[in-house]
């Protein structure tokens, strides 16, 4: 791809891919299963740091590092999710928020991964094809799941937990499953990010990063994979597009624009850009209208 784009544009495209993985995976928890997690950056960090550490110190193959990173995040997801998902509503948000912060602070204090200085010299790997390969895999896996009885179980939990239990669905089990799958892909996204940038710093995985991903999910529409993909690209590219404005005015407008976009969106399209519709649904509607 290098001959097609310059380095900067390519990096933007890769970050879009990383964010697509993050947004689509978080949508499984926040959109489809109706839980509110705001610690996705924490899971991303685990995958990123583990994968980078393995690559630097053991020179293990990239694919293995990525998957191990994902698995470590999934394990963390299980450990965090199992106790907290038994609780209702806002508790999960608080626990995941705390978890994200703990991960960041712990990483700041581990010298083996560079602490506050960050981690340099991570072997360059991945890039466009790997990132989009994983993005496609994430989209494929989650959308296939949603077309199965397991997907319907996630939705039932979101719609009405009491009714779901009365229909024989183990709601705790499905919440934990959603959380583990979601964390796995966050870890993968982290690994891809680490090996593309070749540099990691705990500050990349702060609260704001988690909020970014939540914003992507909400902006795209809770429960729409198509929406998450498009919103991930918008949220990745918007700050870049606004960079010239920031350079001229010397003011960081991104937060203002973020907030404004969200407020306007919530006023005009409270269910996000896509609501819970997918591209295929829109296509069906289009076909219906024109046939």
């Amino acid at each position, binding site marked *: 791809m290098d001959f097609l784009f310059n380095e900067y544009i390519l990096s933007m495209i890769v970050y879009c891919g990383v964010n697509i993985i993050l947004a689509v995976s978080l949508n499984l928890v926040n959109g489809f299963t109706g839980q509110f997690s705001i610690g996705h950056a924490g899971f991303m960090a685990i995958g990123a740091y583990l994968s980078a550490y393995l690559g630097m110190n053991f020179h293990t193959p990239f694919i293995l590092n990525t998957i191990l990173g994902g698995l470590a995040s999934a394990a963390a997801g299980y450990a965090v999710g199992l106790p907290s998902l038994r609780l209702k509503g806002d508790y999960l948000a608080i626990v995941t928020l705390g978890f994200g912060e703990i991960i960041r602070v712990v990483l700041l204090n581990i010298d083996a991964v560079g602490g506050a200085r960050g981690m340099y010299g991570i072997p360059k790997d991945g890039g466009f094809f790997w990132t989009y390969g994983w993005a496609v895999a994430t989209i*494929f*896996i989650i959308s*296939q*799941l949603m*077309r*199965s*009885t*397991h*997907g*319907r*179980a996630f*939705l*039932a939990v979101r*719609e*009405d937990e*009491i*009714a*779901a*239990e*009365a*229909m*024989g*669905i*183990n*709601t705790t089990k499905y919440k934990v*499953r959603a959380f583990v799958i979601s964390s796995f892909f966050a870890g993968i996204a982290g690994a891809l990010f680490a090996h593309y940038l070749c540099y990691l710093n705990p500050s990349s995985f702060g609260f704001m990063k988690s909020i970014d991903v939540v914003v992507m999910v909400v902006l795209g529409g809770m429960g729409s994979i198509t929406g998450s993909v498009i919103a991930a690209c918008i949220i990745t590219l918007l700050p870049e597009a606004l960079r010239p404005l920031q350079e001229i005015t010397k003011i960081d407008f991104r937060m203002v624009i973020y907030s404004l976009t969200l407020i306007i969106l919530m006023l005009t399209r409270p269910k996000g850009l896509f609501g*819970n519709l997918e591209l295929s649904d829109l296509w069906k509607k289009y076909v219906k209208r024109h046939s």
Partner: protein
Amino acid sequence: MLNGTHNKEVLIDADKVTIKFGGLTAVSEFTNKIVSGELVGLIGPNGAGKTTLFNMLTGVYKPTSGVIKFCGTDTLKFKPYELSQKGISRTFQNIRLFKELSVLDNIRIAAHQHTSYSMVESLFKSPRMRREENKIKDMAFDLLKIFKLQERAYEEAGSLPYGQQRRLEILRALATEPKIMMLDEPAAGMNHSETHELMETIHKIRDQFKVTILLIEHDMKLVMGICERILVLDHGVLICEGDAKTVQKNPEVIKAYLGASYEEIIC
């Protein structure tokens, strides 16, 4: 019992079941047995504790004291979803459909407990998944036909008129393939002829699906027609039990219903 008592299994065996909310005893020493194949009516004035009793039988609330057995096993240690898998299904007084999902999906979710294909299989649509999904879909449409809902299978459940939502909830409960189905005021909000028709259908469902039914009804006369046995709850106490005639004549029942007009009770 009309069908004779031989080879009838005791499904629900409640013994001195009591629940207290703070100072309020919502259900007090409820003792009763429900045998397979029965169609039992549970009636009583507002706040008598009918829904609370349902919530205990389905595992939502744990009784303060007393024992509930289902098919001989103590239900206390089971969660609602486990009791559902064992064969207790229910509807809710304040309709709890999966509103934003399709009518069809509401039914299919209830059939989830009878699927066996894994998450991994759903990625490549294994033969087992296809088989089970086809079976669920056929079953769902068969059920929907009971209330002529098949044409609305792909509409959002929340967009159905109120009465149809109640009917869908009954079908959803039925889709779990229960041994006993508990219906909490299934006729609420329906007019007289609709109610009458619904009661007939419930009777048919009982016979066709060989399912035991426990039915809450606020209004006594509605259950008279179809229930072989009626339980009357008042202030959490089971004050009377028997067939329609016995219940109608019982002075305690008349007293409990005195708030309502006399005609409402006997007509």
